[in-house]
């Protein structure tokens, strides 16, 4: 009968014996430092990745961190004519916090940008919904159509609204030429509303695309499941579609809110004195006002406020999503 089973455990032992007999000849004994480095690089995938990443990372970190640090340092200085008093002081920040004008402008910036982000998302949502759920052929054409105006000059898109809303602009002159009004409507241009409308138009693509992507990702069988379980179209939208598309909505809000807070062109062109925003003030400190340290302090204050506002917004919307789910 033999002992056929005995071969199995014995086999591994014999193999290693045999391997050990021939191994030492092949094993290298000494390595130069160059070889060592090469072996280390080969061995560590993370290291190889960082070597490849280093040009990009160095450029970006230096390009962001160094300027921001210099700005932080300067914000503690004082402008003296065309030179700086470099003794560190908190005076700029104290002025920024105490000054009613600064606070008012900051609050107005947040309100205008927040309103603009909300309005842009609100009017873009049905559009994105239509393309995601009701366009079956030529989807790409619709996407290009929705984003095409975005690719033209930002400045000109803003300026186009000045043409439309202006004192002698398209609306006023159009209404007057058909005799509906005798005098131009002055409230159209140079108001916070004009800023919100203009920004909502200029940043539309940043709302449409994220919302569209999040709607498109929704598994259609989930909607069928909701219908199967007794939800009508409207209830189904609020219980399934909307919660699942919220990540896109949240992303769109941030993508619009953050850059528009820092926009000074739109307020300058269509805002008028009542539509001025924080960014205009910062820009002025590096131009007409010529107080760079104060401008730096205002920029840092704005960055902090925007960051806090964005984080608070993310936190609140996460909570909200959690509650709906």
């Amino acid at each position, binding site marked *: 009968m033999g002992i056929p089973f005995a071969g199995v455990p014995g086999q591994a032992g014999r193999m290693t014996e045999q391997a050990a007999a021939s191994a030492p000849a092949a094993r290298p004994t000494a390595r130069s430092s160059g070889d060592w480095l090469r072996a280390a690089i080969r061995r560590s995938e993370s290291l190889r990745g960082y070597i490849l*990443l280093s040009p*990009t*990372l160095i450029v970006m970190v230096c390009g962001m961190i160094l300027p921001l640090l210099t700005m932080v340092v300067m914000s503690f200085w004082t402008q003296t004519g065309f030179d700086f008093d470099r003794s560190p002081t908190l005076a700029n920040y104290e002025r920024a916090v105490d000054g009613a004008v600064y606070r008012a402008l900051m609050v107005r910036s947040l309100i205008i940008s927040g309103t603009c982000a909300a309005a842009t998302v609100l009017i873009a949502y049905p559009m994105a919904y239509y393309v995601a759920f009701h366009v079956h052929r030529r989807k790409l054409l619709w996407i290009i159509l929705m984003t095409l105006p975005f690719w033209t*000059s930002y400045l000109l898109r803003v300026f186009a609204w000045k043409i439309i809303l202006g004192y002698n602009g398209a609306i006023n002159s159009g209404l007057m030429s058909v005799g509906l009004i005798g005098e131009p409507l002055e409230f159209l241009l140079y108001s916070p509303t004009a800023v919100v409308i203009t920004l909502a138009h200029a940043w539309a693509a940043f709302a449409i695309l994220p919302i569209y992507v999040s709607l498109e990702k929704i598994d259609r069988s989930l909607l069928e499941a909701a219908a199967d379980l007794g939800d009508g179209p409207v209830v189904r939208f609020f219980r399934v579609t909307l919660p699942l598309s919220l990540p896109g909505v949240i992303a769109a809000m941030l993508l619009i809110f953050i850059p528009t807070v*820092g926009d000074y062109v739109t307020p300058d062109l269509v805002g008028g004195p009542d539509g001025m925003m924080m960014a205009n003030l910062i820009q002025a400190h590096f131009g007409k006002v010529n107080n760079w340290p104060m401008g730096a302090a205002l920029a840092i204050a704005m*960055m902090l406020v925007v960051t806090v506002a964005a984080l608070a917004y993310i936190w609140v919307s996460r909570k909200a999503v959690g509650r709906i789910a």
Partner: protein
Amino acid sequence: MSDKAGAQRGNRPLLFYAIGYLAFLYIPVLFLPLFSFNDSIYVAFPLSGFTTEWYSVVLADEPMQAALVNSLKVGAAVATIATVLGIFGAKAVTRYRIRGQRPVIGAIMLPLVIPGIILGVALLILLSRVGVQLSLVTVAIGHTLICVPFAMATLMARFEGFDRSMEEAAADLGDNAWWTFWRVTLPLVFPGVVASFLLCFTISFDEFIIAFFLAGTEPTLPIFIYGQLRFPQTLPGVLALGSLILVVSFVVVFFSQWLQRKGAAGSAGPGI
């Protein structure tokens, strides 16, 4: 079946909404070409007559030409540098397991969440403290910083879109890293490279907020246009210029979308 009928019913109002929305997007923009052919220096209704005068005026305008050339130079340089940096970054984060990958990507994407004015001001302060003269180079530096995140995002999508076993197969068949890159990686990410280049070029070409702080005596096109907007007599010329930019960007976008689509169709074939 009933679901489909429901979708059909819901279709109508939404379709009207969509058309209205597109009108909202397009009509303001289309006012530019409309008034650029108007035979009056006042941008107002009623239209007084047809002319192409403003086009010949603006095309003969030497400061405009200089600004256009400046913008093209900056745009091309920025698009090239940002795309190259994007290729390095995208390849590194999609092909290697890197410790601390999320914070690293976050650091590179940082310009997306910092208002442009802050970056512009901070760069202005640094450059003036170091004593660098403001010029087109400093504009290009600022634009590169805001373009790299877009280049990275575009290229990462492309790198993730093709299987890393393609590159492994090239290595397995005897190619070192350099040859693998030229023979496999670059051809496969090429549509992404073109898309990234066009995107970065467009962003730089259009960027005003940062360029305003960093440009020296040579203006870029947006800075030139911004200057012209203050004077009523130059307005029609700006409208003509804007219309030309409009047409060119439409053509470029259509071309790049077509290219993207072609690239996506090519890689969606069997075997991937």
